[in-house]
């Protein structure tokens, strides 16, 4: 075990994947000498050369589109999108090419691309630098989507994503980059939990709290706070957003009967909607109350002085837990 920051763990995962397979290469804006605006690729160009750690011209559609061509040629490109809000110029290539080429070619052409996206808010940035666009991709058939929440997963799941023959969107909670954790750099991928699996990160009995990425830490804090009030929350880290591993959530919900889902993305059509709908379908007879969603608001990501209001925090999550438990909460007395 090595103690390292979240960003160092991603760096280590990239390094390991490049050591393991000469077909792995990195592409993106400013990932070379600078090591990326978040320094995730620090030192990699120096060690692997400019042909494997490629500073590209400033065009996201081309970053993804040329990665598709490299995949046709047998490479396993890892693209860095500088910030969440800059993925949209590449949206067409992701949705119409990356996601569909395996289907289009009847399985003849694989698209083992990984697209790394630092996502989410909480870092005081201007517009377009704090978004949570994951639901656009979980709604897109042909893609796999994961969001990591801790250094160990960041390291392991990045290697799994790169090794996967399907395209993977890999979302990194940028506000957690500096958080630290123990990482087992030597563990074999074979022993790791499957990339598609969710994890119960804190067991509990009264309600099930589902989240991913940056809010896992917040959810754990909320669970600790709830404990003080005598409420026992089971916290589940989705890890894989597409497909979602429903088994542990179902198992939890059969015990708790109460579900709270939280994410930074806006409410309407966020991943929470799908999870609420699925669990209502799968566990209807076990549900004591309607699934509760605690999310960012349905607004463009606000100026940073307001992000503390927009982002679900401990208090808003606990208010959601109160709703799920039928305890007094901010909506008490409101019908519907």
């Amino acid at each position: 075990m090595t103690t390292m920051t979240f960003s160092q763990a991603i760096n280590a995962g990239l390094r390991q994947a490049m050591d393991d397979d000469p077909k792995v290469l990195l592409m993106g804006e400013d990932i070379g000498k600078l090591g990326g605006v978040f320094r995730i690729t620090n030192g990699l160009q120096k060690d692997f050369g400019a042909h494997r750690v490629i500073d590209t011209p400033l065009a996201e559609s081309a970053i993804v589109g040329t990665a598709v061509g490299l995949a046709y040629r047998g490479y396993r490109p890892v693209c860095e999108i500088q910030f969440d809000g800059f993925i949209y110029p590449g949206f067409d290539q992701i949705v119409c090419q990356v996601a569909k080429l395996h289907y289009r070619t009847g399985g003849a052409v694989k698209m083992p691309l990984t697209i790394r996206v630092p996502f989410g808010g909480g870092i005081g940035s201007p517009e377009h630098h704090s978004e949570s666009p994951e639901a656009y991709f979980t709604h897109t058939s042909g893609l796999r989507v994961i969001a990591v929440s801790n250094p160990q997963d960041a390291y392991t799941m990045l290697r799994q994503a790169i090794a996967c023959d399907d395209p993977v969107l890999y979302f990194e909670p940028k506000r957690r980059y500096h958080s630290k954790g123990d990482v087992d750099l030597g563990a074999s991928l074979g022993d790791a939990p499957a990339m598609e699996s969710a994890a119960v990160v804190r067991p509990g009995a009264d309600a099930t709290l589902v989240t991913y990425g940056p809010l896992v830490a917040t959810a754990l804090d909320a669970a600790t706070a709830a404990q003080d009030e005598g409420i026992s929350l089971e916290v589940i880290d989705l890890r894989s957003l597409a497909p979602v591993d429903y088994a542990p959530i179902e198992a939890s919900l059969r015990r708790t009967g109460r579900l709270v889902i939280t994410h930074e993305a806006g409410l309407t059509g966020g991943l929470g909607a799908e999870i609420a709908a699925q669990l209502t379908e799968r566990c209807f007879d076990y549900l004591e109350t309607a699934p509760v969603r605690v999310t960012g608001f349905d607004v463009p990501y606000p100026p940073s002085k307001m992000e503390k209001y927009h982002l679900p925090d401990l208090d808003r999550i606990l208010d959601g837990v109160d709703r799920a438990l039928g305890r007094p909460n901010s909506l008490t007395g409101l019908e519907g």
Partner: protein
Amino acid sequence: MNAYDGESLDPADWHAVEQLITADGTPVDNPELAGWVGDVTDYELADLYEDMVVIRRIDTEATALQRQGELALWPPLLGQEAAQVGSVRALRQDDFVFPSYRENGVAYCRGANVADMMAVWRGNTNSGWDPHGINVATPQIIIGAQTLHAVGYAMGITFDGTDSAAITYFGDGATSQGDVNEAMVFAASFQAPVVFFCQNNHWAISEPVGVQAHIPIAARAPGFGIPSRRVDGNDVLAVMAATRWALDRARRGGGPSYIEAVTYRMGPHTTADDPTRYRDPNELEDWAQRDPIERLGTLLETRGVLTEDRAAAVAAKADAVARELRAGVINRPDPGPLDVFANVYATPNAAVDRQRDRYARYLAGFGAGTETEGSLS
């Protein structure tokens, strides 16, 4: 002999093009261009002629099959045979092609099975061949998207240290798309061994090329640092020469090149289109005078290569291909309902599996078969 410089020209003007064979089948004196095809024998020229005749026959047959309801749609390449044959026949097998939907002539020359090729237009599959089998990517419908794939592939060639090349086909309309311009930026930045092959067939559905550009398309590339040529796209030899020039640059580490092949879409955009709504019939007549096949036929006849026997053999080949195509289309079994779920992912996926299993249960309720086609899908 590098950058094209013709700012004041109309992009629809076909006069200002490099030629080796005129519209009436006369050789043109253009030593530099001719140098690229000095080794092409009359016999090989006749092979190109055969290719074009067969491709036209494929086109006619497919159009007929669409009219008969056997194909859902067909994008004719009528008139563009020389542009496609001249370029594709300049390639080596280890070069890789990134085409649009209209390059079915290219695919034929690369060895695509004509019956499988039609499966796309019948609605059975999305890909008419295995891209790795014939080194031709699945035809691209999203205008211009394939140009970036070609550049990426070519970057890979560089990383691998081999001397093959990538070529990408696209239309005059495609030149307006961001992707095509970004492809030039990346190609120039990485000096990728890629050939941009634009078939300026004068139309993007109903829009004349003048909507996309007020100056020739070939003028675009030099501003990106990519040398370009503008050739008569109905002159198979000029097209081949230009493509060899570009490929030679690519193989020798010279980076990307750009070719505008000035040609004409003599048919509708697709069988669903009605060009009488938007184009002057005289234009079509003018272009019929510059037919790519006829002019080569004339030249080969003059040279005594296209004998009656050879012509009969060509016609027989075309017939055979057309028969193979038709039989393949008509006898192709429909895909089964569960084929919908095949190959969404390369690795098992719980979400898709669950839906497939549930749908199978649903179908079983009707006693319906759940057989799959088993072919490409």
